[in-house]
């Protein structure tokens, strides 16, 4: 039986992808539980911070998604961990200060437009945590994007935000019942109060993930951003 602390739930089309932390003696490592036949969960009634008991079996996942494990016995919730404690555990798992350190390989920029990617044959993992010097969220053509500076001073621009909680927050902010000029209001919030809320938070932390290989590349995305969004922030704009 494995105890898994759910650390990220990301949107992947109609499904969600889940990653958790597993303690193995002194080591804390990321594990991605997957159903036996697909990569995502169409129904996942759990929240981040919940500790789930489950049975997992190793599978031969396509690299660099070496964290994949097949779920052989259903989840059972056993405890809940607070937001700052989740980050404490995440800091003990895979972390890097530099772009090359994220997936232990070179990272390439899209020559045509935006986005950065790693090559599946070069990347050694598909998830990594990092501290950022600065971070900005932006709504670009209705899509939530993040730009951040790593501790090394290297910059990552236009990362798609796939964190379910942040995307839910964006959707709630743009809900028609909230009135007019929704995008402009959200943008103003993202550019002002939010920046401060994120960067001044003592447990500010991000996790960057890789998409599944598509046309021989894995795009970088912002899997998780701490602090998590608060419903009361919607009252501020």
């Amino acid at each position, binding site marked *: 039986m494995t105890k898994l602390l759910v650390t990220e739930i990301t949107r992947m089309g109609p499904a969600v992808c889940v990653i958790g932390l597993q303690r193995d003696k002194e080591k804390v490592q990321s594990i991605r539980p997957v159903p036996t036949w697909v990569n995502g969960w169409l129904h996942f009634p759990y929240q981040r911070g919940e500790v789930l008991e489950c049975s997992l079996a190793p599978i031969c996942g396509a690299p660099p998604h070496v964290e994949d494990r097949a779920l052989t016995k259903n989840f059972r919730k056993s405890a809940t961990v607070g937001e700052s404690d989740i980050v404490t555990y995440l800091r003990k798992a895979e972390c890097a200060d*530099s*772009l*090359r350190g994220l997936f232990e390989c*070179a*990272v*390439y*920029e*899209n*020559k*045509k*437009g*935006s*986005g*950065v990617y790693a090559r599946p044959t070069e990347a050694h993992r598909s998830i990594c945590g990092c501290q950022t010097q600065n971070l900005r969220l*932006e*709504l*670009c*053509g*209705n*899509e939530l*994007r993040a730009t951040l*500076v790593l501790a*090394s*001073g*290297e*910059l*990552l*621009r*236009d990362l*798609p935000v796939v964190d379910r909680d942040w995307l839910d927050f964006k959707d709630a902010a*743009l809900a028609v019942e909230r009135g007019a000029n*929704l*995008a*402009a209001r959200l*943008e103003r919030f993202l550019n002002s109060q939010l920046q401060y809320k994120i960067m001044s938070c003592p447990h500010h932390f991000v996790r960057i993930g890789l998409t599944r290989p598509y046309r021989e590349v894995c*795009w970088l995305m912002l899997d998780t951003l701490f602090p998590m969004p608060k419903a009361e922030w919607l009252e501020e704009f």
Partner: protein
Amino acid sequence: MTPPQLSSLAEEGFRRIVETCFRQEAGASAPFPDETTDLIETGILDSMGWVSFLRAVETASGISLGSGLNEQPSSIAAIMGALQDSMKGPSASNDPQMRMNRAVGASTAFVAASSSVLGAKLVPSEEADRAFGMPIGKLRKRAGIESLAYAAADENELTLGARAAEEALRAASCGTGELDWIIATSETHHDYPALSAQLHSRLLARENCGALDVGGACLGLLNAMVVAQSLIGSGAAQTVGVVTADVHSRVLTPRRVVGEFGGLFGDGASAFVLRRDEHGRADSGYCVGDFLFGCAGQYASAIRVAPNEGGGLDVQFDGEALSRAAITRLEKVIAVLETRSGIARGSVGGFATHQPNPRLVAVLAKQIGVSPETFPAICRTSGNLGSSMCGAALHAALQQAAKAEFSQRKPIFLASLGPGMLLGGTWLTAASSGGAAFRR
């Protein structure tokens, strides 16, 4: 308000940009969609492709679109609408470069004359190998550098820069008294008085001629040129002298830096006389086009140089990452110049780019699919000249162009990079034609 004629020209330009960027993203064979089709809903692009497409249009047009397209369908019509909106008033565009280009008028400044000089001491690259304790032949075999131009004992940034400036002024039949500004850039001159002030005195410029130093290292020439163009376009200046000068051989010495880095550099200077295009004076010169600038911070750690306490230099230099970044970025700048100017890269007569080393220039030419002959061979015999590299290449390209009949002179692309992966570019077109014959 934008005049109707200008508006229709702009629309034509915007449409070309949108189509080019769409095909880059969706593939050359992808049919161009109906204007109102939602590109995400119909699966033509996914959300990553959509944002990538928007960013490509933004870079090529110099107009920020992102927020203008929120709460709108992901369609070509929405993009065209946002681009058109940016033309409605001077404050409508939120892109500083676009505002700058529009305010100064992209063709108000022209390059009347140019010059380039190299350090007088030409040494075989094997001598640099030896001095830096590298295997003999390394610079030649690995980087393609055959020789390096080093400043002679009586040469420095001031003497090289002044010589280049005097030659350019002479070529333009322009007296020093006509200069309204001297704009200097150097990545090796860190003394006071600043280089522009010293040049001002040395050239005997008028007391009310301004003197300004700009930074940017290897991007310095483009930084200096955009300032010159802005001064001319705003009416603050009629004639501006732009001077670059670098003497690496006294800064990047074997005692201070490793040879894989320091051995690549040589010494030189370049100068340009930029003038306002009026009374048909531009007939023999090259008009300066729009500028694009940016900073690709993901490569920030590829090169870092900082003084240490012992008087040496701490150099962090990831050659492989830097090479890859330089090629990718120069390629991207050239693609944007092509899209924005409407001038196909195949029609360009000369690429005056930064030349980190000859090998990379050859790779770049191959990557962008043009003849290596269109890149003036400067670095091979003189080494990397820093902020003077682009200037030396531009001067050579202008000299080459001058051999052709004026109406046959092809456009020139300028593209360069600086530490921190600063990037910039512009294009020059033979003044009277405006490059019309070479546009797509």
